[in-house]
């Protein structure tokens, strides 16, 4: 039975609850300040009473006893726990945000498997505890109090969900970072405007010279055609931005975005729900992009996007077997035939 309404203990609880939300921690001095009990012994007695009814929870902080406030509903739920459940609960509570593996927990409670299982199940269904995957031990199920969030080293940071790398989040955030860095590290040129600048930079060339040059190019092409070789096409297409504008390098001496700036941008834009990524998280993300060849380091702290895409080339699955006179050789190679389109596959 909870303490009777209007009793001293109830008064103490009400005053605590009026000022603070459940979960707040009170020290003896705080409680004495409510002026419910006349003497210290009395106060201790009242606290004891509340603890018995699960409205308070005893904790120690640096050797000093303190009490944590619980809501009445929780207390009610807590009151109807079985002793086994309470035992399991207390062990889970003790580990805090690190969580504890199922088997370790059972060992600590010294319960039988069936009892333990029932208690655990019951606690989970009543929403006292929750399970999660620890990134370090991906195969094991970990438990912690329902109201807590797993510690960084247990969950692995923002890029992990359920103990696995959240590839979708990483890819999404990467794109976001890349776009930001691209805007800040390359100049985007409108094809039209660029043309004007082009003209401006050109010396005035007499029309005859242009014609001469054109003829030269034409004859070179014709020659190339005769000799069976294609003319020199532009080897690389200029890199384009998402909006189709040409990317042109910034002038020398440009300051490129740093980790701090990228982090600031991510935080400001609030792309990730509920979580504020740490600078170290963003640094790891940027590093992975550098290794992926999508960002490159400029100077000591800056980054820019690479303006290129990789060109693919083929590879032979039976290359090691291939030798003259062997079962696979240059004469009977089907891959050659396929590539050269000399035979219908």
């Amino acid at each position, binding site marked *: 039975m909870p303490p009777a309404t209007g009793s001293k203990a109830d008064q103490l609880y009400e005053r605590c609850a009026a000022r603070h939300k459940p979960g707040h921690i009170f020290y003896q001095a705080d409680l004495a300040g409510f002026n419910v009990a006349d003497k210290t012994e009395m106060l201790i007695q009242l606290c004891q009473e509340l603890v018995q009814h699960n409205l308070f929870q005893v904790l120690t902080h640096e050797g000093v006893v303190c009490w944590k406030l619980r809501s009445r509903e929780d207390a009610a739920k807590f009151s109807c726990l079985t002793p086994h459940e309470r035992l399991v609960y207390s062990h889970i509570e003790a580990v805090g945000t690190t969580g504890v593996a199922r088997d370790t927990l059972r060992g600590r409670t010294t319960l039988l498997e069936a009892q333990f299982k029932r208690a655990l199940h019951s606690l989970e269904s009543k929403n006292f505890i929750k399970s999660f995957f620890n990134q370090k031990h991906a195969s094991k199920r970990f438990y912690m109090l329902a109201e807590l969030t797993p510690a960084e080293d247990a969950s692995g940071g923002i*890029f992990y969900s359920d103990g*696995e*790398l959240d*590839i979708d989040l*990483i890819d999404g955030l990467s794109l976001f970072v890349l776009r*930001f860095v691209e*805007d*800040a590290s390359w*100049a*985007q*040129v*409108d094809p039209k405007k660029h043309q004007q600048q*082009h003209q*401006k*930079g*050109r*010396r005035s*060339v007499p029309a005859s010279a242009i014609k*001469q*040059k054109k003829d*030269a190019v034409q*004859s070179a092409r014709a020659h190339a055609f005769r000799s*069976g*070789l294609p003319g020199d096409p532009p*080897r*690389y297409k*200029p890199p384009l931005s998402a909006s189709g*504008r040409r990317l*042109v*390098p*910034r*002038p020398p*001496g*440009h300051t490129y*975005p740093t980790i701090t700036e990228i982090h600031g941008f991510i935080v400001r834009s609030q792309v990730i729900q509920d979580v504020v990524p740490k600078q170290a998280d963003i640094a*790891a*993300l940027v590093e992975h992009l550098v*290794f992926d*060849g999508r960002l490159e380091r*400029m*100077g000591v702290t800056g980054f820019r996007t*690479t*303006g*290129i895409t*990789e060109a*693919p*080339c*083929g590879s*032979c699955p039976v*290359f090691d077997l*291939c030798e*003259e006179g062997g079962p696979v*050789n*240059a*004469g009977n*190679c089907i891959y*050659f035939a396929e*590539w*050269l389109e*000399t035979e219908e596959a």
Partner: protein
Amino acid sequence: MAQNFAELCTLLVDDLYGELSSRVFSTLLRHGRLTLAGLAQTSGLTSRQLKHGLVVLIQQHLALYYSSDSDGQTYYEADGINAYMLVRSGKIIRLLQERFGESAGGLGLNLLLLGHVKIKDLADAYGFNKRKGKTNGPEGINGGGIHDEEIDTSHIRSLAELHRVLDELLRAGFVVKVQETHFRPAADIENDAVQAVMESQFPNGVKGTKEKAQLATSVKALKRKWRDGDDYDEYNQSAGTNGVSNGLKRPAPGPAPTGRKRLKLNGAALNGLNGINREDESGSSLDEEMVVRLNYEKCVVAMRSQQLVRLAERHIGYETSRVYEALLRVLERKIRRCHDDLRDYVDEEDDDVAMSPTISSVEVLNALDPDTNLYGDLILDDVSVAGANGGSGIKDDEEEEGVHEVDGDNEEPGRLFLVTRHIRLLCEDPHRFATWVGRRGGGEFRVNFSELTKSLIQHEIEQTVAAKFGRFAVRLIRILYAKGKLDEKQLHLTGMIKQKEVRAVMSTMQEEGFAEIQEVPRDNNKRDTSRAIFLWFFEQDRVRRLLLAEAYKAMSRILQRIRVERDKVQSVIDKAERTDVVGNEDKYLNAAEKLALKEWMAVEERLLVQLDRHDELVATLRDFSPSYSGMVP
């Protein structure tokens, strides 16, 4: 690798110089150093046949020989690297054509076909108007002989022009005077040099480390002298633009680089004009008795420049890459070979950089084609950029202002400034295409070739890895290259790849030899594998050798396939080559035959392009880096 390399070289020799030569060559390559008697024994050929074969091989620098004073024997050795260079013939001719005009291209082709030649004989062969049958000989790996008319591009019309073109090529270092040592195997040169130095400087033998070091230096100097000939001292002292005067009777007026650029860009029209101008001034200026040949080492330097320009184009932009090209070409005049094994090094890396030549913006500007549009990819001011957001506007720092002002006196205001801007873009790029040295001449720069070569090699490796194993694999390789040895866990964390995938990707790469694993015991209990740490690592040099061997093998396969394809249509080719058919193809060949020929040519062209790409790869992996150049793999 040696096996693949030998196979490839033999195929190349076979294609160009026929079965007899290739049999002699492959025997030498497989058995190493042999006397004529030894050759007869191992090859099963008669000594008459062998002599025929050897003459061709020696003429083409495919075999080296050494007549020993002590036992009177002559030993023969195959030169694999020179044999490999046969595959590069087309590229070298194209390169000469591009830089020095069509006549140089034609001359280059003839020099390639002749191996080495006395200038007088070369002039005779030309007959000053058309070439004699001699130069029309074997036709390169194209085989077939259908493209006969293609050779007819060399427009050397007079002795004077021949001398002018040769002079130009000699000065640029693409043609060199043949020294006697060029025919001798490296080991014999070493022995002779040591002996000569011992006799002259250390008649009482060498004692102590100091004298040993002295001996080594002297031997190197002597070998250098033998290799580079008379111009050695001059070259080393001036190390400048005009240092390479190779057997010239009088120094001709300095070559005009801008003119040369014009040659390249404007093609034949201007070229002819230019040629006439030069003809008047330079008469027969070369020593008629001088023996010359193409210098492959210099061609490799040019190939390196090409590849670097391509890399710059890909990463920065077209206009900047043109500036880089001009920069590298000016530098090339000061560079003879990618790496000189005979130079005196104290500390390889540092010396390499410190001793490398520098170049100024003014020099680049002078070498740059005046029509090059320098504005193209250059953003002068962030304000002028359309749609730029987030970038902090940049103000010219004092140095640039200074350059701008100096430029005011120039006939073309701003061009020097623009060139410097482009070079600074090259400096800022993560590849470090150039490094800033000082402020002389509007900005003085240097190119760290050894670092750039490493990044070229790494680039090639990464491309191969990407094609073979996918994106994750490249990421992992890059991580390992940057961080050294790492365990699976660290790879997974840094690469943000799931641990299971890391293991899968890494073990496939290990199977193919691209990555290696090392087991490090955690404690003294070495047999307990569960208590061991497994570290992945990637070694650039190892993978480089692996790719090189694969490239050799792939090139052999391509050459073999070319033969297979040719055999398929051999009858039609034979018909097309008949003297009565040539010129009357429409009359004698039916539609099916024409189609067959056309298809065959398309197929062969593809294979040759692929061969060419592999050759680029070989150049990157083998020829640019110090540890390999000049060595037979």
